[in-house]
């Protein structure tokens, strides 16, 4: 316990003389620990407890003789214990206030007697006996700075004497004391770790941080933060030298928004309010005028409620910014480091004990701030990373990254609260903690272990043995090879490269091992050399390992893509191929693809495509090599073509005609990347047109019949994307592509292929000519069979295709006959948006056939459709509403059915509030159908359908206009709805509909106007808006319905006019 007492405990004056133990939380916890030890000692270790001390422990006690009860002889101010040593000496003696004790048993008793004065006694005892071990066991066991030899000394004794009972007991006692010592040290460490010492750098940092919060306006947190002195000493302090000796760093005047200006002293012990130092004040100004706080933020939080309230809103920024700078910079600059330090100090409170201890040590180390920089580790993808990885994977051990991320989203508030608890930290505390660090060894095993972890950046070689236990043997072999790569000439490099290729590079262990031992840097560096062989060897490895996404990123981070793009200009074709293939792998993520484009890679890759097949000028071998180059170029472009801007870049570099030429290649391995690129690019309209005009559809169709499923898939997928266009759909048919597509439906095992095929069929079936063909090929039967047990991406397309085919009445019957209606209705319960849109469309199409409707009705399909109106996606809502229309039309007892949906009518009426045009049109159409049933019309009128429809009348969308007019026409049939429409101002806009170009709008509008004209006021409005002339034109239409409605409307208007005249003129 000597070590703990001399080092950890905080003495008032430097550790010599009759020091007093300060009242600090640290000391208190130390004392409590010692007390617990003493209390339990005699019961736990009776034998050791009775051992006589070499010298008594003597101190001034506060105990009174009266406190001593039985077992003690009390005579006046003198108390003697009845228990005596072997020489008759009483083990406890008290005269006046001086007490001397000879054994632990007596110590234990005193502690018991002292009751609530326990701590005071222990403290007095320790203050008087600074090295109790020496007194208890003799001066040879005194605590000496440096190594603790006491155990050895005792051991000597044990061997000298024949092992006597006494020495054995003594030995045990010593060990117990040392155990206590260790315990105390580790406990005090916990305490110390919670303290954060301020230094000029952290203060400067804090001040800068706070300055950022100053400013004008409501949102500011502080008015101003100013130093009292602009002069900065070289040590970072701004205080006069005679104050610096007190540990004062600088003085600040902070104007808050809600208090008087605060005069603040920042010292190493913490920050506190002073007497108002301006420039150089009286001595009394320097005095402390309040509590010591951990740091400026804590002080301000205590002083200014406004600050407290607002700083929390800033917290994220406070924490975030230093982080960013760390990430960006390479952390050479002092500033970034310091920010990092404060960052770490914020963390401290949150960490587990070991971590605290370790970081504290790191922090206290003079000039050692650098090594705890996380960003260093982030940057060092080289040798540092294995440890990072090891830590990262286990995610707890010592991942600096982990802590880092944690702090990012943790508000400062919680920790500052905690920190306030430790505001008493003072100078001695710091000294002792520093000392403790320098001691490193005796009794500090528990944290010395963890400290080595914190210094991993510096002491990597030492750490290696610790981590290598779970590293595979490949790791070490690869590390060795990388060493040869680094320091070898061409032959050595070639041998090492070839040997490295013998590892299973497809295995992640090897891939990561190469990265972790810094192999990637070396391999990429080799690409920059002139040695073709080294480049080839390196690329052969990079090509393999870049299949791993982590490696890809690392290669991109190390600038590998730029170098590889440059290699594409090389004369050596093998080299070009390898570079392109590696680019193909690396460019599988967005940033990689962008890098390729930005460094001119797309253009070069497109140039690789330019090989002349069957050129007579070249030998067969040379041609083969050219084709291989083109193939690799296509592979790389395929990867790159996943970015929209790259697609554009490929097009601009003239890639499309080259791809078109390669598409004629007979080699599958060439066709796959080419078609892959094309189908990827076909998402762009420009490519779809090009594919169509460059005659690529023919080749795509041709390759549908090849025997490579991957190629078939890409072809089908390209057709899928291109067949949005009608000409393309026709071309597919003309080139005989529909039959192979239908044939491909048999490949039910390959889901990707099936998805692409069904997609192509879906899009092709948008043209009715194609549907006829599909009927001919009996595609529907197969499609219906695919409605069950398929993944969603297949289902979407299958259902889409069925939906299109079902537009033909004959096909609806086929679907029913093959049992397709049931699974379709079942799919209405799904969640996939695209699938729901297609399913509702298909069900709607089927529902136009009464026989199908019967099945749908039986399966409660309408209810399912209706519930889809609640789907948040407008596409689904609209599609469901469209599907509902034929259902209502064809269902038996439709009115009754609709009414049976609780809240259904209200739901659909409310959809009129949607902002989506398609939803509105579909819902209007549905309402027009619903309103055919009078009872339902009454209900929806109650739900306010009239004003909602009226509100929509301003639209210019013809599709909506038509269905809206239909709905209005229907709704007019109930009660005073026609009057309400007039009052809601729906009439005038409707009149304008007659000027629309769309004939179907005219028909619906004329019907609506006819209904509305049954109300005289509406007639007046219509007439005012010049309806008559428009209607007269409509009456000449060939559409009888339109004729009749228009005529009816005009008749009503005329009748009103006549009645009016009659009334006026009698």
């Amino acid at each position, binding site marked *: 316990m000597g070590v703990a007492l001399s080092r950890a405990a905080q003495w008032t004056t430097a550790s010599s003389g009759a020091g007093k133990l300060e009242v600090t939380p640290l000391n208190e916890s130390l004392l409590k620990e010692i007390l617990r030890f003493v209390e339990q000692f005699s019961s736990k270790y009776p034998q050791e407890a009775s051992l006589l001390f070499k010298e008594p422990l003597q101190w001034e006690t506060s105990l009174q003789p009266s406190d001593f009860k039985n077992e003690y002889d009390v005579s006046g101010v003198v108390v003697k214990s009845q228990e005596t040593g072997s020489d008759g000496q009483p083990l406890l003696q008290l005269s006046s206030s001086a007490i001397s004790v000879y054994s632990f048993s007596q110590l234990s008793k005193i502690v018991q007697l002292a009751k609530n004065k326990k701590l005071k006694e222990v403290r007095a005892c320790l203050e008087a006996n600074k090295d109790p071990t020496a007194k208890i066991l003799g001066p040879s066991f005194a605590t000496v700075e440096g190594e603790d030899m006491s155990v050895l000394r005792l051991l000597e004794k044990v061997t000298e004497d024949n092992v006597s009972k006494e020495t054995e007991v003594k030995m045990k006692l010593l060990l117990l004391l040392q155990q206590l010592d260790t315990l105390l040290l580790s406990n005090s460490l916990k305490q110390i770790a919670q303290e954060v010492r301020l230094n000029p750098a952290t203060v400067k940092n804090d001040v800068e941080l706070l300055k950022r919060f100053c400013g004008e306006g409501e949102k500011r947190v502080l008015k101003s933060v100013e130093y009292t002195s602009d002069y900065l000493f070289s040590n970072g302090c701004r205080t006069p030298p005679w104050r610096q000796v007190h540990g004062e760093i600088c003085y600040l005047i902070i104007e808050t928004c809600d208090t008087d200006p605060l005069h603040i002293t920042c010292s190493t012990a913490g920050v506190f309010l002073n007497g108002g130092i301006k420039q150089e004040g009286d001595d009394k100004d320097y005095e402390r005028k309040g509590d010591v706080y951990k740091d400026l933020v804590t002080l301000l939080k205590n002083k200014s409620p406004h600050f407290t309230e607002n700083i929390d809103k800033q917290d994220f920024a406070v924490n975030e910014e230093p982080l960013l700078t760390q990430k960006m910079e390479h952390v050479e600059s002092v500033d970034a480091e310091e920010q990092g330090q404060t960052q770490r100090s914020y963390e401290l409170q949150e960490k587990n004990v070991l971590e605290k201890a370790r970081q504290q040590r790191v922090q206290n180390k003079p000039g050692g701030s650098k090594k705890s920089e996380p960003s260093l580790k982030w940057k060092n993808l080289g040798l540092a990373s294995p440890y990072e990885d090891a830590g990262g994977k286990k995610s707890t051990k010592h991942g600096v990254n982990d802590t880092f991320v944690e702090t990012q989203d943790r508000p400062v508030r919680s920790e500052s609260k905690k920190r306030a608890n430790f505001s008493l930290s003072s100078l001695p505390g710091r000294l002792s903690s520093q000392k403790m660090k320098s001691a490193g060894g005796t009794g500090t095993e528990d944290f010395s272990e963890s400290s080595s972890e914190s210094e991993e950046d510096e002491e990597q070689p030492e750490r290696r043995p610790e981590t290598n236990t779970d590293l595979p043997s490949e790791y070490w072999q690869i590390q*060795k*090879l990388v*060493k*040869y790569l*680094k*320091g*070898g*000439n*061409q*032959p*050595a490099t*070639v*041998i*090492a*490269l*070839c*040997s490295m*290729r*013998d590892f299973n590079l497809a295995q992640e262990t090897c891939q990561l091992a190469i990265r972790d031992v810094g192999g990637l840097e070396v391999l990429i560096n080799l690409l920059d050399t002139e040695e*073709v*062989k080294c480049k*080839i*060897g390196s690329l052969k490895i990079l090509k393999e390992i870049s299949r791993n996404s982590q490696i890809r990123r690392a290669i991109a981070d190390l600038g590998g893509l730029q170098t590889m793009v440059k290699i594409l200009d090389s*004369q*050596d074709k093998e080299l070009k191929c390898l570079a392109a293939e590696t680019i193909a792998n690396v460019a599988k993520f967005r940033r990689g693809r962008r890098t390729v484009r930005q460094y001119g890679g797309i253009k070069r890759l497109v140039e690789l495509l330019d090989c002349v097949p069957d050129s007579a000028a070249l030998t067969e071998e040379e041609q083969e090599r050219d084709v291989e180059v083109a193939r690799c170029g296509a592979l790389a472009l395929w990867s790159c073509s996943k970015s929209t801007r790259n697609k554009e870049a490929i097009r601009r570099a003239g890639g499309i005609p080259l791809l078109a030429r390669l598409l004629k290649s007979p080699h599958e391995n060439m066709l796959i990347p080419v078609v892959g690129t094309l189908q990827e690019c076909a998402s762009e309209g420009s490519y779809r047109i090009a594919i169509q005009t460059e005659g690529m559809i023919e080749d795509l169709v041709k390759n549908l019949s090849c025997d490579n499923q991957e190629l078939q898939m890409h072809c089908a997928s390209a057709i899928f994307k291109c067949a949005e266009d009608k000409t393309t759909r026709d071309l597919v048919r003309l080139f005989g592509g529909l039959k192979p597509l239908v044939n491909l439906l048999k490949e039910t095992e390959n889901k990707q292929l099936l998805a692409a095929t069904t997609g192509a069929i879906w899009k092709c079936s948008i043209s009715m000519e194609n549907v006829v063909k599909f009927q001919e090929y009996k595609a529907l039967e197969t499609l219906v069979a695919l409605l069950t047990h398929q993944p969603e991406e297949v289902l979407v397309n299958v259902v889409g295709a069925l939906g299109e085919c079902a537009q033909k009445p004959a096909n609806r019957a086929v679907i029913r006959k093959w049992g397709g209606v049931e699974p379709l209705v079942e799919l209405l319960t799904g969640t996939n948006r695209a699938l729901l849109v297609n399913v509702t469309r298909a069900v709607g199409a089927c529902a136009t056939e009464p026989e199908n409707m019967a099945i749908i009705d039986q399966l409660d399909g309408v209810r399912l459709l209706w519930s889809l109106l609640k789907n948040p996606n407008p596409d689904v809502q609209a599609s469901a509403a469209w599907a509902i229309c034929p259902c209502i039309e064809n269902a038996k007892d439709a009115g009754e059915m609709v009414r049976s949906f609780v809240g259904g009518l209200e739901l659909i009426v409310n959809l009129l509030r949607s902002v989506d045009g398609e939803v509105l049109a579909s819902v209007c159409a549905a309402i027009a159908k619903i309103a055919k049933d009078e009872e339902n019309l009454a209900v929806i009128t109650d739900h306010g359908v009239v004003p909602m429809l009226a509100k929509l009348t301003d639209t210019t969308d013809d599709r909506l206009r038509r269905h809206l007019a239909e709905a209005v026409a229907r709704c007019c049939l109930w009660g005073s709805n026609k009057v309400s429409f007039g009052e809601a101002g729906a009439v005038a806009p409707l009149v304008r509909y007659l000027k629309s170009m769309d004939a179907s709008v005219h028909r619906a509008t004329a019907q609506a106007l006819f209904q509305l004209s049954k109300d005289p006021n509406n007639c007046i409005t219509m007439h005012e808006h010049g309806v008559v002339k428009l209607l007269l034109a409509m009456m000449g239409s060939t559409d009888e319905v339109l004729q009749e409605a228009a005529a009816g409307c005009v008749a009503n208007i005329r009748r009103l006019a006549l009645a009016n005249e009659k009334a006026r003129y009698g």
Partner: protein
Amino acid sequence: MSEMSAMNRKIIQNLAETFSRQIKHFNRTEMECLIRLFNGLLGDQSDRRAANGLDRGKFRNILHKTFGMTDDMIMDRVFHAFDKDNDGYVSVKEWTEGLSVFLRGTLDEKIRYCFDVYDLNGDGHISREEMFHMLKNSLIRQPTEEDPDEGIKDLVEIALKKMDHDHDGRLSYTDFEKAVREEDLLLEAFGTCLPDAKSILAFEQQAFQDPLEN
């Protein structure tokens, strides 16, 4: 003098005619150019007595200056490979024969050539010791290493592991050939003994330009 050169031309043409029938990869004109070049090099040679061919020093000089080779030992071995009759001189025939492989050799020819270069004692095997000898300068010595040769030894073992298919601790021609066919990078595993594409191109351009310009 002109008579002399006319005669020379005749001789050279005849020689080229003969060689181009015996030696692959060069046509007659090219052969003629090479012979001329050889004569030119020979003419420079101070030692007129050695008219029967290029001596070691001269040849090494060419390897170094024209083909950028640096390794002394390898250059000696290349000289050996050219000097088929082992008389210490590269004759005009040896010169053209050597260059045909050196510049335009097929993979097979190059494998044979490289094997001959690496088989230091000519016993038909590349032994551990020979490999060690050839690779001994291939690694940067780390001053910290206890045994500076450890890396080289290790490299030799790696090479053996990779190439010694019959596991007899040395590379036979069959071993070497098989290894190179599997991985053509290994062709020059023990030292650069073939010119790179760039210097080949440069050399040929220079050597095969129109003889009239010379």
